[in-house]
């Protein structure tokens, strides 16, 4: 199952899945349907 892309802010001490992150970041260009 593909993971939702993250900014890689997980620390080395705890490998978090993207599901557990409280904040996720995407480029404003990351929405499909805008040319």
């Amino acid at each position, binding site marked *: *199952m*593909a993971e939702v892309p993250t900014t890689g802010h997980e620390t080395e001490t705890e490998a978090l899945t993207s599901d557990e992150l*409280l904040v996720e970041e995407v*480029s404003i*260009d990351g*929405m*499909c*349907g*805008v040319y």
Partner: protein
Amino acid sequence: MTVAPDMAVAPDTGGKAPAPGKLTDLFQLGLDAPICLTWELTYACNLSCVHCLSSSGRRDPRELTTAECKSVIDTLERMQVFYVNIGGGEPTVRPDFWELVDYATAHHVGVKFSTNGVRLDAAAAARLAASDYVDVQISLDGATREVNDAVRGPGSFDTAMRAMGNLRDAGFRGFKLSVVMTRQNIPQIEEFKAIAEEYGAQLRLTRLRPSGRGADVWDELHPLPAQQKQLYDWLVGHGEQVLTGDSFFHLSAFGGALPGLNLCGAGRVVCLIDPVGDVYACPFAIHENFLAGNVRETGGFEGVWKTSSLFNDLRKPDTGGACKSCGFYDSCRGGCMAAKFFTGLPLDGPDPECVQGYGEAALASVSASAGLPVPRPSVDHSHRTSPSRPRASVPVTIARRRPPAHDCDESPLAGFEAPSPDGASGGCCR
């Protein structure tokens, strides 16, 4: 604290809150406003690109007035729509273009406008370089005049280059150079990167869809399966340096996801406002089936976004349909709604360019069932000098696919021939 209904029950984590879950699942609750949207200001255009998604060329007499446009901007400000992609047609040919861009930025709506460069002289470039809130996107579909002009028309390459030079000379760094990837230009991918670097631009590669006039040239222009893989690998190698507008999420089935939300945003996080105020699910779906309403209605754009039955349907959870049993559905989400619609495929099945090859099989059965016309755009503003195009009522049988190399051959590459290196296109031109 309001708990989202779809929050997973957490395992015992010593008092921690339940995991918020996948980002994309959160959108099931709908958004109070689009995150961003495309606003086509006019159907008028100085060009007649063969693949134009909005079939632009001639202005529509019913286009929104300057006052109506400002009212739309007021609504976008109130709804806190962060960012608008202003396109067309060619938006800069509207006499009130600069007035509207200034009005938008003064009202907290970020603007990127998408242009072929025709009006980007040195003065315009200087004006843009002085503004923090206006971004520019130049369209180019070939790294050479030959490849580009075959799609966008004679002189279009030079126009784009001149505009980019003006932006560079004015000190505007980071404008977007946006390319629609085709069979003919994928071999030029490194040259596009070089052009972007030369002009201080950020490269943006996007997907060709069979929308608008794109339906007429889809067979000749869309990438071949091996090229899709090549493109995917290249994008993975270039990470977030190269933008895609999330237009390649259907390629996620090749491996890891590319940057972006990786889902169809139509009616969920984005939509289109067209030059006459019609609101469509997305710019690639300009067809009455995807028309949600009009900004001139009593509730305006906000009413359409919040209450349209089309949008409410699109916001229902996606169950996968025929793709449910495929292990890759979670990454590709069944691909692009518009690509399926305009190739005559069912929306709950594979994308025509499904990387597993299921789209090819589905298309073969569409051509095999005679008498079912593929949907045509309901709106066509093409210049009258464009070659005439088939009308919806004419049952034309076009061989949309090569027949399979061998009936039993399961390989999607069966019968594949490498494209000719000079990029010669059989597409129509002015």
